[in-house]
């Protein structure tokens, strides 16, 4: 829920910024980032850091979902599309048709922990069990060794890259059952899970805290090490897409490659994700 307010605050900030930039006083370069709510915290940390280093540069970060990010890149309303999934073939095609050549920069890695209420006795599930729960085949926690409670499965909305990832990595072509609830952000998933004893949901690694319990999957718990070495089965890279590879040394180039620097690394760790490089 905090996310939602942040989003609104962001929009307001962006609107204010645009208003300011419309004035003739400001002549600095503007970079607009838009897209995934998962990549949002990284992008915001990068933007803040980069603007501090380079006072002439204005960076705005929008969080409207991966699909919207791709759309903005195609419409050239943003320079960087933050995406928690890879671009779809249809999006690539549409982008190429409008003269935009999307180039992917992997900024970080993320695991999708499966979250349950802290009071839930279940500690481990297999990917197949998670799939059957979301399909609606397993409907009670006692079927997987938990309490006698009807399962409330909570998914991200179909707009989000997190949903696409879960759909691909866990569901594997099966359809999510009709009883599954949908919410609009990672924060909302955590909110639903922490207040609902029978809930199961999934969110980015950064959204795990004491108020929810992350299950281990196939016996492996989601952690930095297991995601980076690929043993945790529900993991994914996070992307920033640009139109073509940015000119070397340009602000845009330095911004999207910030993840390779030591400062970038520690920022990624602070936001709860896993850096691609290890210093």
């Amino acid at each position, binding site marked *: 829920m905090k996310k939602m307010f942040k989003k609104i605050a962001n929009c307001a900030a962006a609107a204010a910024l645009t208003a300011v930039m419309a004035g003739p006083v400001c002549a600095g370069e503007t970079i607009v980032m838009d897209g995934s709510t998962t990549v949002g915290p990284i992008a915001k940390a990068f933007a803040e850091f980069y603007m501090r280093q380079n006072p002439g540069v204005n960076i705005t970060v929008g969080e409207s979902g991966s*699909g919207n990010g791709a*759309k903005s890149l195609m419409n050239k309303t943003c320079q960087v599309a933050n995406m928690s999934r890879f671009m779809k073939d*249809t999006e690539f095609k549409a982008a190429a*048709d409008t003269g935009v050549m999307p180039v992917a920069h992997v900024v970080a890695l993320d695991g999708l922990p499966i979250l349950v209420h802290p009071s839930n006795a279940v500690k481990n599930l297999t990917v197949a069990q998670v799939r059957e729960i979301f399909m609606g085949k397993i409907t009670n926690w006692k079927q997987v060794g938990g309490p006698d409670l009807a399962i409330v499965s909570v998914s991200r909305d*179909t707009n989000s890259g997190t949903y696409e990832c879960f759909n691909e990595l866990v569901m594997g072509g099966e*359809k999510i059952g009709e*009883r599954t609830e*949908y919410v609009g952000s990672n924060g*909302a998933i955590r909110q639903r899970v922490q*207040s609902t004893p029978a809930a199961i949901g999934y969110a980015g690694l950064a959204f795990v805290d004491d108020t929810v319990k992350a299950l281990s999957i196939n016996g492996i718990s989601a952690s930095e090490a297991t995601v980076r070495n690929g043993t945790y089965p529900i993991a994914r890279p996070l992307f920033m897409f640009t139109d073509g590879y940015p000119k070397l040394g340009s602000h845009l180039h330095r911004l999207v490659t910030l993840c390779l620097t030591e400062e970038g690394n520690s920022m990624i760790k602070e936001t709860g994700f896993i850096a691609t490089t290890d210093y």
Partner: protein
Amino acid sequence: MTAVTASSSKKQSLMMSRRAGRMQRLGQILGQSFLFSITSLSAFAVLFIFFFITRDAIPFFMPEAGAFNWENLRQFFSETAWYPSARPGQFGALSLFYGSAMVTLGAILVAVPLGISAAVCLSDVLAFNLRQIVKPVIEILAAIPSVAYGFFALVVFAPLLQNAGGTVLAFGFWIVALPILGIACIIAGQTFAARFPENRRTVAALTATAILGVLSLVLLWLIGGKLSGMSISSGTNAFNVSIILGIMALPTVVSVSEDALQAVGRELREGSYALGATRAETIIKTVMPAAISGILAAVILGVMRAVGETMVVWMASGNAAQIPSPFYNFMEPVRTLTATIAGDMGEADHVTGSERYHVLFALALCLLAFSFIMNLVSEAIVRRSRKKLGKE
């Protein structure tokens, strides 16, 4: 057009002196046409919205010109599987229509009895000074942003329903049923006592009321016990949203029906009192029937408020595209038309996934058509009631 100019020229002779200069006449024409174009702008906005939504909705049913896709139409209105992101996508919108209808019905069940009682209280029971304070306070409800309602529904009400659902239900039931049953007992007691001779009437009324009172308390206790035994697995459900939407529709219902009750006028009320009717009889048998069309219009406006609300249902209805089983189970999550449009818009680009994009416009068109019809109906009702009251 000709009618407009004719009437305006008639006015012109009234407003403007014959000796007005050329510039003054020019100024008048300019001023009038400026105001006219501003007014027609809002009228055209409605037409444009209809046009563009229809234009983008048609390709869903007719992918190529002339080739009508009956399969899509059938699926849209008769199936419940809503998987817009599957390949190929499944667009069974019946569950969405059902979800919208369900939460609207629930909201009306909350808002109409509450709203009409409040309106009666404001117009016929409360002292004038008090009413001047209470009405604006109720109208503040309409000024609260819907996202705030949604936040409350998701963060406060949903966990409350999950943790103490039975108690909340039983408590709510008691609050509603206790006064109603109380009044019913007293009335029934009085009616019963009217059969007895004068000297035994008070005793008979007391005994009858007491017996009925005890019976209804037992009934309350039984039903309350059953309700408090219920547990709700998911707090984001049709019930939660119905209550919140009902509260949101309340100011509309109160305001409009209170206006209608006020419009009935003093003469009718005084006539009724003069015939020996009590205040309750006057309200129920004279004032409310006279104001019934205004009250109906209030209900319709409340329906429109509930059906068009997006943020609250997106946040707190659970958004599960299903027809609950059994179909009247309000404790199940549902998904509404508005929430679906808001939630599925991001991935649905007309460049990338045409069906998925156009189906949302088809949903929007259904919503628009529904509110258009409702609007026409309420306009007609209000006009009829004005005519009726004007004649009396």
